[in-house]
């Protein structure tokens, strides 16, 4: 029984982890149809922000929850202004440019901080004991944060003017531009927002996975697959795909081993895309956000 509860929490964390690393990418993809190959590096930059800040005496919570999203969000806006905005409607060129950006980020961070960084931050919040099993309190915290982030996203989409535009764009990009919505500004805000959410995720994961200049490569493929499996709806898509893929991955990894767990995740994604070529939200939850 202890094992079941403890394992369930572990799998829930796996799902939250997927959602967390994918959400920023989903925002950018869902609203702008832009595939950001530098997404993994945005996560990495979030992590570095936290490391540099805490090493300079900033409180870890402020570093993770305020500085990481702020810094990466600003980087996102700058990148959008300097690079992405020249490439709207050229999805493949965006792919190439963001791949270049990803290499650039890795190179820059390596030049600045070296190949490996002394990260002395450890996950706060101690240990939760369930019978004979223990879990990381910080992992539980991440589950809660992910849930809150999704709720906040829901509220933002439902209640704010930007959310209204976003909903329109998700349903039909041409329509909203025909309605005279100033898309360039919206795009800039969206990209910045996506980057900020990604920065937050990177910051939050830094204590538990550590940061290296090349850590982005670990995340990018998974985030990609989650977003595409989820479909166009940002929140329901990310959430449903994370639950499904995270669940498959967690259970199989526990029963067999980590590699088969990874393979199971990928196979699940392929089967899913065969059955639902437009992703989960292309078939179910069509009215979802």
């Amino acid at each position, binding site marked *: 029984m202890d*094992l079941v509860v*403890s*394992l369930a929490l*572990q799998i829930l*964390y*796996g799902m939250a*982890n997927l959602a967390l690393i994918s959400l920023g990418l989903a925002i950018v993809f869902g609203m702008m149809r832009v595939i950001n190959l530098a997404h993994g590096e945005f996560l990495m930059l979030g992590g570095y922000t936290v490391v540099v800040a805490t090493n300079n005496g900033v409180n870890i919570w402020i570093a993770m929850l305020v500085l990481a999203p702020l810094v990466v969000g600003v980087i996102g806006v700058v990148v959008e202004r300097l690079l992405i905005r020249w490439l709207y409607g050229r999805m493949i060129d965006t792919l190439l440019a963001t791949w270049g950006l990803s290499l650039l980020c*890795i*190179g820059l961070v*390596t030049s600045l901080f*070296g*190949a*490996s*960084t*002394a*990260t*002395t*931050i*450890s*996950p706060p919040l*101690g*240990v939760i*004991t369930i019978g*004979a*099993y*223990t*879990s*990381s*309190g*910080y*992992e539980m915290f991440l589950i809660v944060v992910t849930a809150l982030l999704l709720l906040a996203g829901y509220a933002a989409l439902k209640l704010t003017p930007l959310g209204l535009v976003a909903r329109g764009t998700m349903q039909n990009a041409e329509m909203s531009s025909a309605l005279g919505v100033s898309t360039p500004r919206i795009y800039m805000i969206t990209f910045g927002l996506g980057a900020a959410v990604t920065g937050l995720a990177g910051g939050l994961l830094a*204590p*538990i*996975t*550590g940061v*290296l200049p*090349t*850590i982005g*490569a*670990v995340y990018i493929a998974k985030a990609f697959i989650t977003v595409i499996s989820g479909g166009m709806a940002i929140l329901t898509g990310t959430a449903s795909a994370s639950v499904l893929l995270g669940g498959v991955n*967690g259970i199989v*990894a*526990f029963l067999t*081993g*980590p*590699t088969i*767990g*990874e393979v199971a995740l990928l196979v699940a994604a392929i089967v899913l895309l065969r059955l639902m070529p437009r992703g989960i939200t292309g078939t179910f939850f069509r009215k979802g956000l």
Partner: protein
Amino acid sequence: MKLNRRHFIATASAAALASPAIIGRALAADGIKFVSILDQSNGLDIYGKPMVDTTRMAVDEINAAGGLLGRPIDLKVYDPQSSIQLYTQFATQAAAGDRADVVHAGITSASREAIRPTFSRFQVLYFYNVLYEGGVCDINNFCTGSTPAQTVEKLVPYTMNKWGKKVYIIAADYNYGQITAQWVQKYVRDNGGDPVATEFFPLDVTNFGPTIKKIQQARPDMVMSALVGGAHVSFYRQYAAAGMNASIPIASTTFGVGNEHKLISAEEGNGMICAYSYFEEIDNAANKAFVKRFRDRLGADAPALNELAARAYEGAYIWAEAVKQAGTAERMAVIEALRSGVHYDGPSGRVQIEPRTNHANQNVYLAELKDQSFQILETYENQPPTDTLLVCDLVKDPSQSTFKFENGLKAAGIDI
């Protein structure tokens, strides 16, 4: 018009492809050519960067002292960017293009096995200065790093005596991890223990949650880790975050050689036990001087020193000793000299080539991690590579060039 343009492109690309050769020849005019191929970017750089730093330091020191046989050493450093394909390309370039006198190269066993045949084919002396799973039997290849019989064989009984006999093994999923896990299983059984489970992790795994649950379920007395690379560092963090480091201690065959102990916090790492042929904390004059020279050279940016970094330095010096003794940098003469018992007294103590295996007899230290530095608990002097000695005798048959453990230990006739 069209014809001209295409012709231009073809000539331009031909010229472009040719130019590294031209540059290479110009640089390598009269010095002794020493090529280093080590990953300085992408994933494996946590190992490669300090190794390149110490290699440069060794060559600079030798040159500052008047070079070798009155000639300077020309050092060329290639960065294969953690790509096997670039490894083979640079190996070919070093051998056929630069006509190197010696190449010090490779970090993972994968890269070593990819380039070793190239150096045999082109008859270029090859040094591999990294701790590994043992089993290379190649007249042309000198493996100066420690092997499991030198380190793991000490580490397993020590930690089992201290913590208990049930051992949970986790290892990186490639041949270093696979074969090292078999060595661990063997040594655990030899010492009357029980290897309860063995699990392998691809190098890009960062979520160890399910495994930590399995460890909790299996309740071993200790965990033996042979994890590799930057991503795997997260195991130690997540293990500590789940409160596990307080209840089930970890020993490792790899932790620290990528300076992992500087990447995680003191609390996360405290209590881990490892055995290598070098620790920065070794207390002798030679090492203290070495560490000081290294710090002075690189200033505040200097990384911590570990077996890989120290052995890259010592490897260069052993080769230099052999060249001096042979009186030439010519390959066969240097091989002869190396195999005649050349030794170098460096920061790790005496390192001496063992002629039956082309491996090194070396000192081994066992240490416990405390507040991000290793406290040396035991010292084992002049340890021979008994694992490779089981399968390799280059004195009897010098024509060999194989990796004996390619198919695992059982296939090599070793009972696990």
